[in-house]
C-alpha cells in the first residue's frame, strides 16, 4: 500500500497542532493546495451504490468528486486502496468517554459545555481512530439532570477547540436520579426547572415588548429571540467565531448565560438528548418532550425495551445501550430470557444507533461491546441487513446529531472523513488500515506501534524506521 500523507495546515490549525502532526507523520507536503486521491478500492458511499475500483478526490479536507473515471490531478498525493474497502468514517452518536469527569456533581448545570472537558489525549480517541470512528458526539454522562451542552468533535486533534465539528449539538438530560434522590423528586425538579425557564422566557418577552417603542434598533433583537435567525447564527458560530450579536450588555431581552441553554432547549433550537435508564422513564421522557415541545433523542438503557410499544412509530432513531444482548430472569417464575435488543427494536420498527459506553459494559466478558463496529456486527447477527448496519455506523448517527451535512457519507462537499478497511466490513479478519479526518491520515495500521505491542508482546520494540 502506497500511502502518502500530506498536510497543509497553514491557517487552519494552530502551531502546536502542526508540531504534533509533524512529529507523528513522516511526510508533510508543502503544496499550497492540499490534494489527495484515494484510488483502486471498493467505495461504499452509504448514499448510492458501492463503486468498485473507484476514485475519491479530496481538496483542502473536503471531498471533491467520487467516481470511476476521474482524472487524478498531478499534484495530488495518491493513496492506493486496491483490494481494500473505503467507507465514510464512523460516527458515534453518544459518548461521555472523551470527557474528563463527565458528570457534574451539581445536577443542574445546563450552562456548562463539554468543549471545556474534552481531553484530546483520552484513550477513547486513540481507540476511535484505530476502529474507524472519525466523529463523536461528546456529551455529559448519565448522572446529571441537566448535564450541559454537548458537542460533536472529530477524533483527532491537539486542542478540543480544533476538534469541534459542531458546538452546542445538544443538551444532556437524564431521568436517572443522582445519588439517593428519588425518582419523584428528580422528575419534579426537572419539571420545575423547565417551568421556571418558561416563566423566564415570558418575562424576557415582556421586557422585549416594553423596550420596543423606546428603541426601534432593538426590534431585530426582539424578533431574534423568536428563534430562526438565532438558530442560524448558532450553526455558524464555529465557522466565524460568532461572538458578535449577543454582546450588548444592556440588552435585558437576551437570556443570561446561566439560562441561555435552557431557553434554547425550550425554543427547540437546542435538541435534548434524554437518557432513560429504565422502561418506566420512557413514558415520562415522551411526556416531557410533548409538554415542553422539545426536540429530543432518546438514549435508552437496557431495560427500556419493555416500553418499546411506546416507541413504535417514532421515526427518530434511538441510541441503544452497548450491551445489545443480555439475559433477564422473571422474578416470579424464575424463567430466564435472552433479550436481543436489535431484534426487538427491529420488530417494533424503531431505527437504532450504537454507542460504546455505558454502565453495563463492566459485565461484558469480551471486549466486543466497547467497539462500535462490533455493535453493528451484533445487529447483523440478529437480522439487521448489512447495508443498514453500515448506515447505522455512519449517516444515521450523523443525522441524529445534526452533522449530516458534513459527515456520514462519501459525497462531494462533505468532509473527507474516511476509513480504509483491509477487507469487507464487519468481518473477523478485517482491520482498519487507515483513518482519514479532514483529508489527513490520522491513523495508519502499519504505524500503530501500540497495537503491535499488544499483538506481539514478546517482540522487542524495533527502532523507528
Amino acid at each position, binding site marked *: 500500500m502506497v500511502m502518502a500523507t500530506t498536510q497543509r495546515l497553514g491557517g487552519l490549525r494552530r502551531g502546536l497542532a502542526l508540531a504534533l502532526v509533524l512529529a507523528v507523520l513522516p511526510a508533510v507536503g508543502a503544496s499550497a493546495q492540499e490534494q489527495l486521491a484515494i484510488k483502486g478500492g471498493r467505495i461504499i458511499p452509504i448514499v448510492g451504490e458501492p463503486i468498485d475500483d473507484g476514485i475519491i478526490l479530496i481538496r483542502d479536507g473536503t471531498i471533491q468528486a467520487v467516481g470511476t473515471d476521474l482524472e487524478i490531478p498531478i499534484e495530488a498525493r495518491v493513496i492506493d486502496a486496491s483490494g481494500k474497502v473505503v467507507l465514510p468514517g464512523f460516527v458515534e452518536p453518544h459518548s461521555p468517554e472523551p470527557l474528563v469527569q463527565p458528570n457534574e456533581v451539581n445536577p443542574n448545570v445546563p450552562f456548562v459545555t463539554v468543549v471545556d472537558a474534552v481531553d484530546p489525549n483520552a*484513550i477513547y480517541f486513540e481507540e476511535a481512530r484505530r476502529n474507524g470512528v472519525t466523529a463523536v458526539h461528546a456529551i455529559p454522562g448519565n448522572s446529571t439532570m441537566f448535564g450541559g451542552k454537548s458537542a460533536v468533535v472529530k477524533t483527532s486533534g491537539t486542542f478540543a477547540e480544533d476538534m469541534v465539528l459542531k458546538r452546542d449539538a445538544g443538551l444532556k438530560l437524564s431521568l436517572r436520579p443522582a445519588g439517593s434522590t428519588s425518582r419523584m423528586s428528580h422528575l419534579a425538579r426537572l419539571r420545575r426547572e423547565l417551568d421556571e425557564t418558561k416563566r423566564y422566557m415570558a418575562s424576557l418577552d415582556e421586557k422585549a415588548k416594553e423596550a420596543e417603542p423606546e428603541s426601534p434598533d432593538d426590534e431585530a433583537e426582539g424578533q431574534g429571540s423568536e428563534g430562526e435567525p438565532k438558530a442560524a447564527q448558532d450553526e455558524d458560530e464555529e465557522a466565524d467565531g460568532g461572538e458578535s450579536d449577543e454582546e450588548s450588555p444592556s440588552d435585558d431581552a437576551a437570556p443570561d448565560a446561566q439560562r441561555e441553554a435552557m431557553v434554547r432547549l425550550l425554543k427547540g433550537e437546542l435538541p435534548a438528548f434524554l437518557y432513560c435508564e429504565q422502561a418506566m422513564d420512557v413514558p415520562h421522557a415522551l411526556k416531557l418532550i410533548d409538554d415542553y415541545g422539545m426536540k429530543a433523542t432518546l438514549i435508552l438503557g437496557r431495560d427500556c425495551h419493555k416500553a418499546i410499544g411506546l416507541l413504535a412509530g417514532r421515526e427518530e432513531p434511538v441510541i441503544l445501550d452497548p450491551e445489545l444482548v443480555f*439475559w433477564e*430472569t422473571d422474578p416470579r417464575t*424464575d424463567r*430466564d430470557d*435472552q433479550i436481543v435488543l436489535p431484534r426487538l427494536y427491529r420488530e417494533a420498527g424503531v431505527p437504532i444507533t450504537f454507542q460504546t459506553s455505558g454502565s453495563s*459494559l*463492566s459485565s*461484558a*466478558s*469480551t*471486549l*466486543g461491546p*466497547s467497539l462500535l463496529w*462490533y455493535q453493528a*456486527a*451484533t445487529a*447483523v*447477527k*440478529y437480522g439487521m441487513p448489512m447495508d443498514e448496519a453500515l448506515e447505522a455506523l455512519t449517516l444515521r448517527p450523523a443525522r441524529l446529531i445534526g452533522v449530516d451535512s458534513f459527515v456520514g457519507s462519501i459525497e462531494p462537499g462533505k468532509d473527507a472523513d474516511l476509513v480504509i478497511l483491509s477487507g469487507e466490513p*464487519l*468481518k*473477523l*479478519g478485517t482491520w482498519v488500515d487507515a483513518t482519514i479526518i479532514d483529508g489527513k491520515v490520522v491513523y495508519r495500521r502499519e504505524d500503530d506501534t501500540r*497495537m503491535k*505491542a*499488544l*499483538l*506481539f*508482546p*514478546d517482540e522487542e520494540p524495533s527502532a523507528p524506521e
Partner: protein
Amino acid sequence: MRCCKIMLERFQDRRAGQGLPLPESSRTMSRSLHLRIRAWVAAAAPLVLLAVGPAAAAGDDGDVLIRAGSVVTVEGETFAPGAVLVSGGVIAGVGASIEAPEGAEVLDLGEGTTLLPGFVDVDLPGGVTGPSVEVTREITPRFNPLPAIDWSSRSFVEALAGGTTAGAFIPLSENVVPGMAPVVKTAGSRRVVEAEAALVVTVASDPASRNRSRTRPDSIYVRQPTNRMGVVAMLREALNRASRGAEPDLDTTLPVEADPYEPLRDVIQGRRSVLAISRTDYDILTVLRLAGEFGYAPIILGGQEAYKVAGPLAATGVPVVLGPLRINGPYGPERTELAWNTAGVLHEAGVAVALSGGDLLEQARFAARFGLPEEEALKAITIGPARVLGVADRLGSIAVGKAADLVALEGDPLEFTTPVRWVMVDGVVQFPRPKPSEED
C-alpha cells in the same frame, strides 16, 4: 506442543489407570463425602428436570441424524458437507454422509451451516450460590463447590445459549488450596460429569489479600499468609507434609476434612491434575518451580501474563487456561499487563491453550482476530479445555462414543455476525427452549 500433549495424556492415563483416585488410606471418609455429593446430586436431579422442562424428557432415545454444511470434529477431519448420527445421547456416527436409520429424526441444517462440538469452559462464571470457598482455613483440598451449585441458575442458561455445554466450577482463589473443581453439564438430566476433576491451588496474592497481622483479635483473618511469599510457603509446606505422610496442620487445615492431604498426595503422585490460579509472570514461574520440586504437572489458570513466560511454559509442557480478555482499563486482575494476542503467542511457542470465563465463542473469535490460528481457536474452547479437565474421552470433539453435545451455527463459526441456531446436550436440543405454547 507435542511434549505437553504427551504429558497431559500421561496424566490422564495415570488417572484412568487408577480408576478414579481413592487410595486405601482414607477410603472410608472420602466415601462418605462422595455419598454426600451423590445424595446432593440425586436430590437436585428432579429440580433440574423441572427447570429444563419437558424438552429434556422428550426424545431421549430416538436416533437423530444431523446434516450440516460442515461438521468440524475439531480433533479429526472436517466434513463439508457432513453428518452426525446421535443415538441415545451419544454420537454414533460421523462422516461426509450417513444414511438415516429407520425411524430416525433428521435435522437438516442446510447449506453454509456449521456443526461444532459443545464448548467446554474450565472456569464457568456464576452458578454457585454464595462464595465458593471455605475461608476459615487456608488449606481445604477436599472442599467442593458442587453442593453450592444452583442448578437452575441463569448462568447455565447463558452459557448454554452461547454454545457451552459443559465446564468446571473453580472454587474462589481466597484460599491457598481452595478445593476441588467439579465438571458439570450446563443442561440435561445428568449434570455431573466428574465430581472431582482437578485440585485447585492458588499461586497469587489473593489468599493474602484479606489476612492481617493485626485486626480484631477474634477475626479469622488474623493469620498467615499476609503476602505472596507466605502463600507459596504455605502451599509448599502443605505439599511437604502431605508427601512425607505427616498429620494435618490444624492451624491451616480444617479438622472436618477426611485426610486433607490425600488430594495433595494424589497430585504429587501424578494421579490428579492440578489447576494453579496464577496470573503474573513471576507467579507462573513459581508454579513451575513448585511443580519441579514435587514432580507434578500443573495447569495454569488465568495466565494473563503467560505470554511473558511462553518459553518456560512450552519447555515444561504446561498448558494455560486463559481468563477472559477485557479492556476496562489498561490492566487485568492483579495489575497484570494484558496483551491482546496472549493465546496466539502461547500457541506459537508450543503451549497448549484453552479459553475460559464465559462467552467462549466470542472469546475464540477475538483470539482468532488477534492471531490464534482459526482451527486452534476452535480447539481452545472444545478439546483443549476437555483435555485440561481430563474429560476428553467423553467431551470436547465430535467423535463416535462421545456425548452428543453439539452446537449448530448459521455460518462461519468465527465470524462475529454468525448466530447460534441451537445447542444440543446429550442428544437433546436445550437451546432455544420450546416456546411456552409448545411446552404444554
